[in-house]
């Protein structure tokens, strides 16, 4: 046991001290945060870019008041101006672009053009499209000569936004967001894939390094091959866990900073505070909060809602299952990788063995991505049970909610399988590391597996 700990320590220390490890560990969460924060900041600051747009209608004035000015843009209705004349001068006149509406628009939907030097933002296009669509609808309805049409229209106008509330077994409810669950499923599944793959192949490279440099001969004259293999696998697992824990810690820290700085502006902390209260009072408070939010800034309110919904995810369960599936999934794959590493003489020879091992991992990733669309599908269910794919698929399913019995069965299968794989790999490894200059096949490895001495 003491010798294994010496090996674990070496495997751990040599990797943790590498510059690449330190850089990756610090940079990854910063990049991740940047991916989330930058679009938010951009979104929040977008309104400041004010645009003036010239509207030209060719020969009619159906849409004279159809485009009310907004905070982002002013719509100036120009009479008696030809598009071709304005095309050359609109910029000097201070316009962002020209909106040209042809009279055929009621029957030909694409008879509208927005002419500008830059690609106009989606929000602007959406706004124009919606407004004009409404106006055209109104015009068409007018043709039916319905009495009091304006009043009726005002009456039927509704605006809805679905609020999703998930109720757990204890009757507690939380505001959730399918969007957040999808993001978590994506990040979780992908992270698991990356970690298992990166650290699994590190094990393989380590084994090959020891074999080609013949260090292994010196070591196995001091310790048992199994001890060397386990020491290496555990050492590298600890490296992975260290990295993961630092990532979690940094992410929490960054999230905390976002919470206390950006969101403070919106004065919306009540939303997060009410998160765990019961259904009734939450609905009331949320209503109050959203009224307040509407007064402040709709985008920020939206962001804050997403953020509070993210906070409401079962983080404890997610992190604990992630660690469990990382450890077992990694042990499963790392032991296969170790066996492969022991069977070859150099890295290029690993190709033929890598393919059958890579297929289940990539399959798992693909199923996990599909899980985001349909977490209850039977494919997702079975793949989250089968140990070769379950670490990635199950992690992708958890944010959507997984019954505990499924989690338990999947975990139990995982434990049994990884133990079996470690045991078999150790047998292959023991023979493989001392074999040189021989092209190994699966058949050969199968034979080693059955060697007794």
């Amino acid at each position, binding site marked *: 046991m003491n010798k294994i700990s010496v090996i674990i320590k070496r495997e751990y220390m*040599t990797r943790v001290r590498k510059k690449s490890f330190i850089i990756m560990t610090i940079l990854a969460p910063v990049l991740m945060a940047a991916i989330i924060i930058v679009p938010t900041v951009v979104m929040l600051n977008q309104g400041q870019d004010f645009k003036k747009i010239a509207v030209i209608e060719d020969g009619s004035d159906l849409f004279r008041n159809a485009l009310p000015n907004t905070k982002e843009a002013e719509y100036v209705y120009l009479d008696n101006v030809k598009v071709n004349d304005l095309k050359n001068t609109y910029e000097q006149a201070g316009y962002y672009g020209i909106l040209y509406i042809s009279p055929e628009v009621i029957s030909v939907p694409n008879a509208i053009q927005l002419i500008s030097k830059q690609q106009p933002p989606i929000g602007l296009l959406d706004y124009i499209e919606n407004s004009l669509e409404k106006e055209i609808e109104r015009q068409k309805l007018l043709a039916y000569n319905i009495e009091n049409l304006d009043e009726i229209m005002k009456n039927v106008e509704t605006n809805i936004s679905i609020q999703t509330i998930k109720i757990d077994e204890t009757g507690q409810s939380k505001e959730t967001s399918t969007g957040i669950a999808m993001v978590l499923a994506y990040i979780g599944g992908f992270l698991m894939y990356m970690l298992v793959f990166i650290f699994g192949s590190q094990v393989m490279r380590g084994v090959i390094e020891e074999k080609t440099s*013949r260090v292994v001969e010196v070591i196995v*004259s001091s310790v048992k091959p199994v001890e060397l293999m386990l020491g290496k696998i555990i050492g590298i697992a600890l490296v992975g866990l260290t990295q993961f824990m630092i990532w979690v810690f940094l992410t929490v820290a960054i999230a905390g900073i976002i919470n206390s700085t950006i969101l403070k502006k919106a004065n919306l902390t009540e939303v997060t505070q009410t998160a765990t209260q019961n259904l009734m009072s939450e609905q009331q408070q949320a209503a109050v909060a959203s009224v307040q939010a509407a007064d402040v800034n709709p985008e920020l309110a939206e962001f804050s809602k997403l953020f509070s919904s993210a906070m409401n995810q079962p983080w404890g369960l997610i992190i604990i299952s992630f660690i469990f599936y990382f450890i077992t999934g990694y042990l499963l794959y790392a032991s296969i990788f170790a066996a492969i590493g022991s069977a070859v003489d150099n890295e290029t020879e690993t190709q033929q063995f890598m393919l059958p091992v890579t297929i289940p991992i990539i399959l798992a990733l693909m199923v996990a991505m599909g899980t985001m669309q349909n977490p209850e599908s039977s494919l997702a269910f079975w793949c989250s049970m089968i140990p070769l794919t379950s670490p990635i698929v199950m992690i992708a399913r958890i944010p959507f909610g997984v019954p505990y019995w499924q989690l338990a069965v999947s975990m139990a299968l995982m434990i049994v399988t990884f133990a079996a794989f470690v045991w078999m790999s150790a047998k292959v490894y023991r023979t493989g590391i001392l074999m040189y200059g021989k092209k190994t096949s699966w058949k050969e490895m199968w034979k080693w597996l059955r060697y007794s001495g």
Partner: protein
Amino acid sequence: MALFEAKDVTKQYATQLALDKVSIAVPEQSIYGLLGPNGAGKTTLIRIINQITGPDSGELFLNGKKLKPEDVTLIGYLPEERGLYKKMKVGEQALYFARLKGLSKHEAMKRLKYWFKKLEITDWWGKKVEELSKGMQQKVQFIITVLHEPKLLIFDEPFTGFDPVNANIIKNEILFLRERGATIIFSTHNMGSVEELCDNITLINKAKTILEGSVNDIRNQWAANEYDLVIDGDGKVEGNGQFSILSRQTEKGKDIYRLKASPDIDTNYILNTAIRSGRIISFNPALPSMNEIFIRVVESRN
């Protein structure tokens, strides 16, 4: 008394027999040569002694007791292909291997300092192995092998990669280790060093022992009543019924003869004959070199 003994060790790999009832007995505080052509089974035997692999049948004894897994701490092994982590620093690496052999950190540091100083490599402590020359790496590996002061040392081709000066340093260290009580198994193709260092040898060919015994006995056994004679003079030594001239060369005015005598000859008779032809400079029984014996034995078996 034999410090180490292997009795009827047999090892079968999938397609070939690596060792066929090989036995060796290594007397305490001696240097034992393990010889044989490539692929004869030497490495397999060494791996079995190191308990890296197990024999199919046969028994191994250390100090008269059956070899146990814990005995690895009593054995030091310098493999033919040197194995060091290239990216690791020399000092750290030496310490790591010492810890794997069961030394405490404190004790390992103390001994490492002593050995690094003795072999004059203290300056390399903080360097990475890949920065060292092959000979330097060999020195580090040598220290790693002997550091835990094992009773039994196994050196597989210890001199390859060394320049003559450093080879001599290592040779003296090996002799010094024996003096201090270590028993050494020494595998090599360099027959010159066998004659110089080994007390006993075993020659393995195609998985079987084909020659064993003390180096002196073997050389005398294989001596074929031949003598080397060097004379400074004008006359010519002629063969007669008692001995014949196998070859004659002249070098710097001296004549060098290789004579073959009849088995029961009185060597003084040869000298009496020779003395008439000039001044005798030397007269020696021509013992065959281990190299010759090696080649002759192996070839006669093939």
